[in-house]
C-alpha cells in the first residue's frame, strides 16, 4: 500500500500553513493526525500533489477554559481530550467520546480538527459537539470566522471549510455544574466507528428534566439534534416512562443511513435504545 508521490511541507504555525495553502494551490491537503487521510492515500483514493503537515503546529494543540468557553485547539488529539481535566470537569461526555474513538494508538495521533474537517458521518465528535452548541473557529489569510457547528457540517464528508482555510479551534460554552452529559456508542464491530452515537445533556434537578439536549452521530448523513426528543422530555419527570415515550421521536424526520451492519430499521431502533441509555445515564 503505497501513496502516490507528493511534495511535503511542514507548517509550524497557522500562519505558515495558510501561506503554504496559498502557495500550493488546490491540489494540497492538510495532514493532521492522518488516520483518515493516510489510509485513503495508501488506497490511492486520495492523491494530493502537496501535503501540508499541520500535525506539529503547537499553536493549535491546546485545551483551555477561557471567557466562559471550553476551547479545544484543532491539533488536540483524542488522547489529549480524553485525559484533559478541563474536559472531564466541564464536559465529561466529550472526554467519554474521545476515549471511545479507534484504539489507543489512533487516539494518540487523531485530532479534533482532523475529525471535524473530514466530516465522516460515522465520526463520534459531532454529536456531543452539537449538544454542547459548539462553534468552529476557522482561519484564513483574511482573518478568522466563527461558525456554529450546525452550519459547518453541510453533508456527507462535506463542510463549510474553504480551500484556503484552516479549522483551528472548536469551542463551546462551559455549562453550569449541575448539567449532566454522556455519550453512548453502539459500535460498528469491524472499524469501531459508531453505528449509533448518542450524546445527551440535561439538568435533572428536582426530579424534572430541563435543558435537554440530544444529538446523534452516524445515524444520518450528518450529525443532528434530536429536537423532538428534547421537546418531549423538557418539563417531564425523570422517569423511565417519560424517557421511553420521548425516545420514540429519536429519528423523526431523519433520512437514516443503512449499511451491511445496520439497516435503516435496525439503526433507527438502536438510536432509540441508545437515546434511552443516554438519558438513563443522566439520572
Amino acid at each position, binding site marked *: *500500500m*503505497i501513496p*502516490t*508521490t507528493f511534495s511535503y511541507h511542514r507548517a509550524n504555525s497557522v500562519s505558515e500553513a495558510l501561506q503554504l495553502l496559498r502557495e500550493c494551490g488546490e491540489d494540497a491537503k492538510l495532514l493532521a493526525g492522518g488516520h483518515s487521510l493516510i489510509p485513503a492515500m495508501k*488506497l*490511492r483514493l486520495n492523491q494530493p500533489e502537496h501535503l501540508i503537515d499541520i500535525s506539529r503546529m503547537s499553536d493549535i494543540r491546546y485545551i483551555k477554559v477561557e471567557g466562559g468557553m471550553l476551547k479545544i485547539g484543532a491539533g488536540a488529539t483524542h488522547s489529549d481530550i480524553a485525559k484533559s481535566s478541563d474536559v472531564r470537569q466541564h464536559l465529561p461526555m466529550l472526554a467519554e467520546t474521545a476515549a471511545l474513538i479507534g484504539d489507543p494508538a489512533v487516539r494518540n495521533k487523531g485530532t479534533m480538527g482532523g475529525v471535524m474537517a473530514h466530516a465522516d458521518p460515522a465520526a463520534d465528535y459531532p454529536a456531543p459537539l452539537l449538544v454542547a452548541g459548539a462553534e468552529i473557529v476557522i482561519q484564513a489569510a483574511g482573518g478568522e470566522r466563527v461558525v456554529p457547528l450546525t452550519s459547518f457540517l453541510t453533508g456527507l464528508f462535506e463542510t463549510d471549510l474553504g480551500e484556503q482555510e484552516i479549522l483551528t479551534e472548536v469551542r463551546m460554552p462551559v455549562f453550569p455544574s449541575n448539567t449532566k452529559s454522556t455519550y453512548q456508542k*453502539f459500535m460498528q*464491530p*469491524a*472499524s469501531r466507528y459508531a453505528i449509533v452515537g448518542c450524546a445527551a445533556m440535561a439538568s435533572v434537578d428536582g426530579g424534572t428534566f430541563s435543558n435537554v439536549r440530544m444529538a446523534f452521530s452516524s445515524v444520518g448523513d450528518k450529525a443532528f439534534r434530536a429536537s423532538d426528543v428534547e421537546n418531549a422530555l423538557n418539563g417531564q419527570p425523570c422517569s423511565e416512562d417519560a424517557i421511553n415515550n420521548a425516545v420514540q421521536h429519536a429519528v423523526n424526520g431523519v433520512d437514516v443511513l443503512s449499511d*451491511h*451492519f*445496520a*439497516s435503516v430499521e*435496525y439503526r433507527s*431502533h*438502536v438510536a432509540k*435504545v441508545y437515546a434511552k441509555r443516554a438519558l438513563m445515564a443522566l439520572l
Partner: protein
Amino acid sequence: MANYIGQPVKRVEDKRFITGKGKYTDDIVLPNMTFAYILRSPYAHATINGIDISEAMAMDGVVAIYTGNDIPEAVAGVPCGWQVNFKNGDTMKEPPHPLLVRRKVRHVGDGVAMIIATSREIARDAADLVEVDYDEHDAVANPADAVKPGAPLVHEDAPNNLAFDWEIGDKEKTDAAMSGAAHITRLDFVNQRVVPNAMEPRAAIGDYDDSKDHYTLYTSSQNPHLTRLLMCAFVLGLPEHKVRVVSPDVGGGFGSKIFHYTEEALVVWASRQLNVPVKWTSDRSEAFLTDAHGRDHVTTAELGLDADGNFVGLRINTVANMGAYLSTFAPAVPTYLHGTLLQGLYTTPAIHIDLKAAFTHTNAVDAYRGAGRPEATFLLERLVEVAAMETGRDPAQLRLQNFIPAFDGVNEPGYQTQVALQYDSGDYHAALHKAMEMVGYDEFRKEQAAAREQGKLMGIGFSTYIEACGIAPSAVVGALGARAGLFESSQVRVQPTGKVSVYTGSHSHGQGHETTFAQVVADQFGISLDDVEIVHGDSDSVAFGMGTYGSRSLAVGGSAIVASCQKVIDKGAKIAAHLLEVSEEDLEFANGKWSVKGTDKSVGFGDVALTAYVPHNYPENLEPGLDFSSFYDPKNFTYPFGAHICIVEVDPETGKVEVKRFVAVDDVGNVINPMIVDGQIHGGVAQGIGQALFEEVLYDDNASLLNGSYMDYTMPRADDLPMFEVGRTVTPCPHNPLGVKGAGEAGCIAATPAVVNAVVDALRPFNVKDIRMPMTPERVWRAMHSNGNGH
C-alpha cells in the same frame, strides 16, 4: 534429564519473535532484488479486449511487465491436488488456473499483469499506467444460485457451474429410515464464507542463479516441499533438484498457506526471465481477494429420531462453493473431510449426503482451520440442538443418549461409521460429562431461569465433535482422489558430540514444533532439551515433507521422528554392546545410556555418538555415523473429539451477544506440551467464535467483494472474547507411537455451533429456532421479532 513429555516447556522459538528477530519472507532482502506488483481484475467476470502497457513500460525503474500472453503455453496453471469424480464416474471439471489471465477474468482479484520494478513504489505507480480494456459480464457469487439453470457460467466447459457432484452413505436406507422416523428436524442454513486472515500477508521471492542454473523460492507456505513438487512438476516444468524452496518464519496459516499459489510460480518464472530476484508481498486488501477462503456451504439438513429420541437417519443436501478455480485441496474439503464426518459422535444407523460443488465468480475456497469438519460439526450440532428443542428433550441428555459407547481401539475394535471412516478410540460421554461439570450445568439452568425472570437473556450451547486428523494414510487418500501421499519424513542426525539435529517435513507457523518435537526427541534419547534442535521449512535441509495442516504434524511428523530415533537407538545398541563387550540382547536403553541388565555397567548416549563418528574401537561390518531418516505413513486418521459449552448473554434491546463463558474439553490423545495444546485450543475457539458472531465475506450482485478490509470485515478483538476454560480427557491414539491425535483444529471445529446453540437457547422465550451466522446484533434482534424465523 528427560521426562519432558507432558510438561509445559516454554517455547524455544519465542526469543526471536519477542525480540523482533523473527525472519518472515518479506523481511528477506537479496542483492539486486526487484519488486513485483500484480495488477488484478476489478471485475468478477469480464473479457479482456486488450492491455496497453506502453506508458507503464516507459517509466524509469520499470524492469518488465508481463501479461497472460507473455507466459509461454508450456507453463501450465496451478494444479489441483485432489481429484473427485462425478457420481456417474466422470472426472471432475478442472479448468486451468492460469498464472496470469489471457482472455477472461473469473473473479475480482484474478491476476492480469505483473509489473516488476526496481522498487515497490515504482511497481505500484506503473500499475496505474497499465490500461486494460474489459467487457464486463454477469457474475454469480452464491453457490446455490450458481447451480441453477441460466446462471452465468464461470467456465464454458462446466455446465451448470458444476465442478462435480458427489455422495456418500446409503441413500435408500436413509430415505427409508427418514420415512419411518417419529420426528424429523429440518434446517436450511448457510455456513458462510470466511477469510482465514493469517496476520502475515503472503509473500514470495523468486531467485534464479544463472551460474548454477538454480532456483530458490522463499515463500510464506505451510508446506515448502509440496509447493516445490507442484510448481516444478506441474507448472513450470523445472527439475526439482535445481529448485530450493524455503518457508522461513511464517506468520500463521490456518490453511490459507497450504496451497500452491500463482504468485509463487510467477516470481520464480520472472526471476528466470530477468536473472534478478523478484519479490512479491501481498497487501491485506490483496489477501482478502486472493488468499483461499473457507466454508461457504448452502445446506439442507434433516435428522430423523424415533419416539424415544434415538437418531435413526441423517439426510444432507449441500452445495459447496469452490470459487472460480479449484485450489490445491478444494475438492477434498466438502467431500472426504466433511461427508465422511457426518457420523459425528452418534450411532445414527443411516446417513446420506448429496453434494454439489459449484464454480462461482469468486476467489477460491479451500481448507480453512478444520476444513470440512467444522461444516460437518456445525450441521450435526445444530440439528441435535433443534431436535432437542422440538422434542422437548435436554440437549445434553439427547447427545449422551445417542453417543457411540466408549472404545479404546486396542481391546475393543475401532468404530466403523456409515460414512467410510473407522474411528480409532474414544470416550465421548466422558468428555461431555467433564464439560458439564466444569460449566456447572444444573446450576446454570437455575441461574438462567432466574435471569429470565428479570428479563435477562442468558443461554447455554453445547457442541460435541469428532474430527479426522493426522492426515492421512496415503493408500486410503489415494483411493479417494488425493494426487499425493500424505506421509511425513524425518531425519535425526546425532552429531559426534551427542547433540541432535532433527529435520522434519512438518512446518511450524505458530504451532511450536521447535519445542514439542524437541521434547519428544529429548525423551527418546534421555538427553537435555538444549541438546536438540529442530530444523524445518527448507527443502535443502529437509529431505522431503508434506507440510503442516489437518492437525497432522505431531501424529504424522512426530511419528516419523520417533521412527528415526528408534533407528538411532537400535544402531547405538550395536555400538554400546561392542564397547561394553556384551551382546545387544543384554542391553537396555534408558535415561540416555545403554546399561547391561542387572549391572551398573553402562555407556552413555554421547559416548556412543562419538564412537560412531570416531570408529576406532568399533563393531565390524557396521557403518560409521549415527544419522537416520524415516518416512512414516499413518495407519489411520486420528480422531480427536470433545465437548464445548458456551454461555452467552444477549442484549434484549439491541441483540448484541456477549460470550460470558466458554468451556472447552478436548481429547487430543496424549499430550506432549499442555501449554502449547491449550494455546491451540484458545486460538481455534476464538476463530470459531469469530465465525459465529463476526465474520462473513459479502459480495454484491456482480460478485464484487463488499468488505475486503478490516474496516468492514470483523476480526475478533481482545475485548470481544472472554478468558477460556480449558479441560481435557485423554484417550490415546492406538495406532501411532506417541498416542497423539492432533490439536490444531479442534477449537475451530467445535466452537462455532456452541455459540449459535447458546444464542438460540438464550432466545428460547422468543421461540427462535435458528439464526444465520454471523449472529450480528441486527440478525439476533430480528430473530427476536420474527416469531422464530431467524432468517
